[in-house]
C-alpha cells in the first residue's frame, strides 16, 4: 500500500517538475523570423562574429531606409508584407554538426522561423539543412563551399555562393596564366587540408583539376582541425618540394600553419589558399606581417569598389559600426540575408512553399549587390547560384588586393612570396 502511494507521489512530482519548465519559444507574429546558425564559439568564432555582424547590418538596411541600390534598402521593412520587419534569431553551432542540427530543429519547431540561413562550416550546413528539408523549411546557404551540398537533390536548400569545384579550377587557370604571363616555373603542388567535408571536398576538386591542367600533386596532407602542433605536417610539405602549397583550413589552423612555417623557416613559391581561415580577420590580426603575401581565392575584395562604389559605401557603414572591414565571408552573409529577405518579399508571405517557389524563380542583377557577381539565379535542379564568380586576392600591407583575373586586378602579383629572412 505504502509503495503505491510512493509511486503516486513520484509520478505527480515528475509531472510538476516538467510543467515547471515552460515550453520555450514564442509565436511568429508580426516580424518575419529568420534563423541564422553560425559558429559563435570555437576555433572560427571570430569569423562567425564577422558574419553575424554583417547579417545584422543587412537586417538594419532592410528594416530601415537607406539610399542604396540594394533590394529593400529604400523601403522600410518588406513592402509586400505590409512593412513587416525582419527579425533574425542567432544560434551557435560551435563548429559541431550535431549541434547545428539540434539548433536548426529548435529554430523550426520552437522559434517558428520562416526560413533558415547558415552555417559557414560545410559539415554543419549539411546537417542543419537536413533538419530544414525534413520540416520543409527553406534554407539559404551563403558561405559553405562543399560541392556535395547541392548534389543531394534537396528541394528546400539554396546556395548563393559559388562553390569549391569551379574555385579549384580557377586556381589552375590562375597558375597557367602566371606561367604564361610572368614566365614562372610551376610544376608541382601540395594540398594540405582539414579532414571534414570542406577539406575533403577541396582535395577532390583540386586533384581533379591538377590532373586536367597538367600539374603534379606531390603531397596530400590531411590533418585534424584544432591540431596542437603542425610541425610534422610542415616538414612533410617541405620534403615534398612543392612549388605551390594549397591549403584548406579554418581560422585557428591557418594561423598555426603560418606560425609553424615561420618557426621552421619554410616558404614555398606561393601559398594558394581556399579562402576560409586565410581571409579571416583574426588571421590578419594575430599574424600581422607574418601572414602576408598569401594568395587566396575570394569572392569579394574591397578594391573592387573602384568598379562598384556601393561596395565602399556599405563597407564604411559596416566599419563604422563594427570596427573592421568586411571580407568575402561577411559580404556573402550580408548578401545571403538580402536575397532571402527579397525572396520572402516577392513571395508576399511567410508560407514556406511560397518562399521556396519565390527562391526557385529568383533573379537579381549584379548591379544590385555588393558581390562582384553577374547576379543571382538558382539552377532549377541543384538550386546552386549559377551567376557567381571567383577572384584571387593577395594579402599585402594588411589589405586584400585583387590580382586575378588580370582584367579585374588592381595591382600586380608579388611572386614568389618573399622568404622569411627577406622581410
Amino acid at each position, binding site marked *: 500500500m505504502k509503495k503505491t502511494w510512493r*509511486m503516486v507521489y*513520484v*509520478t505527480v512530482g*515528475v*509531472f510538476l*517538475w*516538467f510543467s515547471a*519548465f515552460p*515550453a*520555450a*519559444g514564442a509565436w511568429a507574429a508580426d516580424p518575419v523570423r529568420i534563423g541564422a546558425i553560425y559558429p*559563435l*564559439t570555437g576555433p572560427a568564432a571570430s569569423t562567425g562574429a564577422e558574419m553575424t555582424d554583417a547579417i545584422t547590418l543587412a537586417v538594419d538596411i532592410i528594416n530601415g531606409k537607406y539610399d542604396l541600390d540594394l533590394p529593400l534598402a529604400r523601403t522600410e521593412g518588406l513592402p509586400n508584407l505590409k512593412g513587416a520587419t525582419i527579425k533574425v534569431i*542567432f*544560434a*551557435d553551432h*560551435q563548429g*559541431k*554538426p*550535431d*549541434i547545428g*542540427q539540434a539548433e536548426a*530543429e*529548435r529554430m523550426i*519547431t*520552437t522559434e517558428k522561423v520562416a526560413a533558415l540561413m547558415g552555417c559557414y562550416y560545410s*559539415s554543419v550546413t*549539411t*546537417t542543419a539543412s*537536413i533538419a530544414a*528539408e*525534413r*520540416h520543409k523549411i527553406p534554407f539559404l546557404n551563403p558561405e559553405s563551399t562543399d560541392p556535395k551540398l547541392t548534389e543531394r537533390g534537396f528541394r528546400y536548400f539554396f546556395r548563393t555562393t559559388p562553390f569549391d569545384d569551379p574555385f579549384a579550377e580557377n586556381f589552375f587557370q590562375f597558375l597557367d596564366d602566371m606561367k604564361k604571363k610572368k614566365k614562372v616555373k610551376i610544376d608541382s603542388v601540395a594540398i594540405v587540408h*582539414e*579532414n*571534414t*567535408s570542406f577539406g*575533403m571536398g577541396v582535395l577532390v576538386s583540386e586533384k581533379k583539376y591538377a590532373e586536367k591542367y597538367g600539374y603534379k600533386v606531390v603531397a596530400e596532407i590531411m590533418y*585534424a*582541425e584544432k591540431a596542437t602542433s603542425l610541425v610534422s605536417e610542415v616538414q612533410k610539405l617541405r620534403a615534398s618540394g612543392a612549388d605551390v602549397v594549397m591549403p584548406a583550413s579554418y581560422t585557428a589552423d591557418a594561423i598555426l600553419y603560418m606560425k609553424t612555417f615561420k618557426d621552421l623557416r619554410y616558404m614555398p613559391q606561393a601559398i594558394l589558399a581556399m579562402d576560409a581561415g586565410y581571409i579571416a580577420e583574426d588571421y590578419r590580426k594575430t599574424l600581422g606581417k607574418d601572414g602576408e603575401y598569401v594568395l587566396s581565392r575570394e569572392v569579394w575584395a574591397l578594391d573592387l569598389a573602384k568598379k562598384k562604389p556601393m561596395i565602399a559605401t556599405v563597407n564604411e557603414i559596416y566599419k563604422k559600426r563594427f570596427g573592421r572591414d568586411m571580407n568575402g565571408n561577411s559580404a556573402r552573409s550580408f548578401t545571403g540575408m538580402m536575397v532571402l529577405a527579397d525572396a520572402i518579399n516577392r513571395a508576399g508571405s511567410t508560407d514556406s512553399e511560397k518562399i521556396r517557389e519565390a527562391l526557385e524563380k529568383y533573379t537579381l542583377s549584379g548591379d544590385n549587390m555588393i558581390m562582384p557577381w553577374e547576379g543571382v539565379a538558382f539552377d532549377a535542379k541543384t538550386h546552386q547560384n549559377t551567376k557567381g564568380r571567383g577572384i584571387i586576392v593577395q594579402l599585402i600591407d594588411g589589405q586584400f588586393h585583387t590580382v586575378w583575373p588580370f582584367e579585374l586586378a588592381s595591382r600586380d602579383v608579388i611572386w614568389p612570396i618573399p622568404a622569411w629572412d627577406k622581410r
Partner: protein
Amino acid sequence: MLAAAVAYPFVFRKPFPQDLAIKIFLFGGLASAWNVLGGFTGQVSLGNAIFFGVGAYATAVVQTHWGWTPWVGMVLGMGVACGVAFVIGYPCFRLKGHYFAMATLAIGEVFSTLFMNWQWVGGAVGVYIPLRDDTWKYFQFGTTKLPYYYVTLAFLVLALLISEGILRSRMGYYFRAIREDQDAARSLGVSARGYKLSAIGISAMITSLGGGLYAQYVLFIDPPSVFPMMLSIQVVLLAVLGGVGTLWGPVLGTVILIPLSEFTRIYIGGTGSGLDLIAYGFLIVLVSVVQPRGILGFFRKGGNA
C-alpha cells in the same frame, strides 16, 4: 507510472517536450547500463562512449554501405560492442580501481582518434544516414516523434528490467561481492574475471543499443558526437548523482540533470552547455564529499543497494 509515461506524449504534444523525454529515456538507459558495470560491480569505466559509438556506427554503416535496415545494424552493433567489451575487459580487469578507470579513459580516446581517421566509416566527415520518408523498416520518422518516444521508452524499460533482474539474481550477488572485496570473493570461489566480463558485456550491449537508437534519431554521426569523453563522463555522473548501485538511481539522476542541461542550453543561449556542466561538476563533488550514495541515499537509511 508506466501509464503516465505512455500517456505523456498526448498531453504534451509539442515536439520539444517529446524530444526532452526521448533524451531522458535514452540517457536513463545508458546510465543504467553503466551502473551494471560501475555501480553493481564497482568497476568504474570512464569509456562507455566506446560502446555507444560502436552501436551508432554499426547501425549507420550497415545502411550506407550495404543498404540493410538499421535494426540489423543495432543487433550487429550489440554483438560487436560485446566483443569489444571482452577485448577491453580481459586485460583491463587485471587493473584495480584508479588504473582501470584511467585505462578506459585512454581506450576511449584511442577509439575516438581511430574513428576520426578511418575513412571507410567516413573519418572526420562522419556518416549521413540517407533520408527516407517515415518508415518502420528503416526506423526513421520525419513528421512525428511518437515512434521514437515509445521505442526509447521501451529501451529504458528494458535496461531497468535487466538491472532489476541482475540485482535479484545470484550473478548480481557475485557482482556486489566483487565490488566490496574482490580478493575475498575470489577466495570463496567466485571467478572475478568471469563475472566482471559478464558485467562489461551486458553494459556494452545495452549502451550500444542506445547508440543505434541515437543514430536513427539524429540521422548523422561523427566521432565527436558519439565517442566523446564527455559522453562517458555524463553517463557516470547521471548514475552517481542519482545513486550509484541502485536500480532507480541512474533514472533519477537523468530526470534531474537532463532537463537542467537542455534548459540552460536554451535560456543561457548560444554559448552551449557550459552552465549545466558546471552544475554537473559541482554536484559530483558535493555528492562525493557529502553524500556518496547520491540522492537516493537520502531516502534509504543504511542498508545496501
